[in-house]
């Protein structure tokens, strides 16, 4: 499930949005969107909404994150970049209550505990991420509706980058833009825009 960190530049960053949809819009959320990302090709903006960049197997439809150049399920190498759905439900969580050793941890020197978990996105993939926005560090519950967001991440070298996280989003707000666009049947995945 690991990213193929040594592969050349990732082609899915080429805009190839769903038919009729603009690949990238200018309607970005001010703030975090203007910060340099913690890593290239990790997330992107689509109609003003952040989306994680994954990959989808053209043979079996299996999704992976971060994007990789082969399929962890069918072993095929015909995969393409895709935007993952931005919403899902909390699969499980914990709280990182002690400072992780640095390196590898690059967060601010004055450690603040944070929640972390997996969000099961539509399309059959669960993504690990920092959690934010609940009332209290232990205010998360399995099954909670969650939504991707981009937030500033203060590094221990004093710089600030943009990182992804998930926050509770309540239910019934009806705001599920294109939730299904990027996880169609075999042949369809990989059409999503992943311009960054």
């Amino acid at each position: 499930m690991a990213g193929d960190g040594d592969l050349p530049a990732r082609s899915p960053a080429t805009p190839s949005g769903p038919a009729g949809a603009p690949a990238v819009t200018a309607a970005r959320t001010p703030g975090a969107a203007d910060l340099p990302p913690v890593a290239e090709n990790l997330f992107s903006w689509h109609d003003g909404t952040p989306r994680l960049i994954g990959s989808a197997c053209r043979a079996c439809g299996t999704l992976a994150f971060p994007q990789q150049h082969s399929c962890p399920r069918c072993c095929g190498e015909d995969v393409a970049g895709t935007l993952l759905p931005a919403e899902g439900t909390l699969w499980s969580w914990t709280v990182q209550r002690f400072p992780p050793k640095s390196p590898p941890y690059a967060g601010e020197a004055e450690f603040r505990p944070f929640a972390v978990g997996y969000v099961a996105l539509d399309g059959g993939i669960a993504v690990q991420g920092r959690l934010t926005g609940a009332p209290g560090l232990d205010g998360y519950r399995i099954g909670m509706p969650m939504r991707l967001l981009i937030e500033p991440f203060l590094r221990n070298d004093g710089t600030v980058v943009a990182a992804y996280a998930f926050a509770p989003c309540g239910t019934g707000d009806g705001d599920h833009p294109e939730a299904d666009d990027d996880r169609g049947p075999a042949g369809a995945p990989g059409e999503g825009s992943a311009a960054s």
Partner: protein
Amino acid sequence: MTGSLAIAGIGIHPFGRNEGQSGLQMAVAAARKALADAGLSWPDIQFAVGGSDSAGKPDTMVTRLGLTGLPFTNVINGCATGGASLLTARAAIASGTHEIGLVVGFDKHARGAFDPRPEDWGLDGWYGDLGMMVTTQYFGIKIQRYMHEHGITSASLARVAAKAFRNGERNPAAWRRKPLPVDEILGSAMVADPLTRYMFCSPSAGAVALVVCHPGLATRFPAPPVYVRAVSMRSRRFGSFEVFSPSMPVTRGPSPSQEAAQAAYAEAGIGPGEFDVVQVQDTESGAELMHLAECGLCEHGAQEELMATGATEIGGPMPVNTDGGCIASGEPIGASGLRQVYETVLQLRGQAGDRQVDGARTGFTHVYGAPGISACAVLSR
């Protein structure tokens, strides 16, 4: 039935911080004890397999043990290193290449949680930057979900740790030998919800060595023979939830522990319900409970009753982690898997002293490690 490998001698260097001693020094001490236990000397050893994650190259032990020219293979497979070493030794003997060998595992780690680097695990740097390259997170997340699905309570998690410390008290080679009441374990500082400080093992130092031989030679040594009836190892399949995974499929598949255990049972012709003593990886309390079910030793969710009734205590119907496990011994990565085998051999020989399981004839061992590997063994008298 004698399987394809036998244990002729065992040696351990006690686990703990072991300040002032290197991992290699501990390994040599354990090797000399194992040789003495088998009534052999180093030149009798035809091949060796050694594992260490952080304490140096095992084959450099020949400098201290003697330059006999033997082939010495180094193995490194995370927390499953001991299991992989045993598998390697079995292959050497089953192939007919050698008849007597030494398997050794040792380690020594810095204080605090492990600090793995993303690039060593096929991951990009951002994963570590954001603070997700932390094993304790995985353990907390996995047991949190398991408790949700199977009705396991925090009290059961605390009972696992309390049992570990009680068993550790009876084990001179253990590190944490002071019993702790369940309330104190539950009330200790939260580390990775729902797991508290005393539910976790800590990285430590220690060493274990085994003299292994062809089963046809097993009765030539001083101690009662113990046979390795099966040894197996598996890596992860699509659908298992593993440490250091930025993502995973929502649909669950079999875990490496489940598949390694089933392979071992099939090879040995001995399975759940037939083991007198069981050792499973308990990097924290939740792992012991989940691994029991993944290995088919209980139903999912049955752990709550097992812990409430003391079924896994020494004296219960299925004693688990009789030497105190990782929780009482700490985790020297290269040594832990062989510690389980060492304990099982002691139990099957009837040499386990205050923690002896009466009349133990069969045993099972299980290790699990990053990035989703498991190794199991079945042993019998």
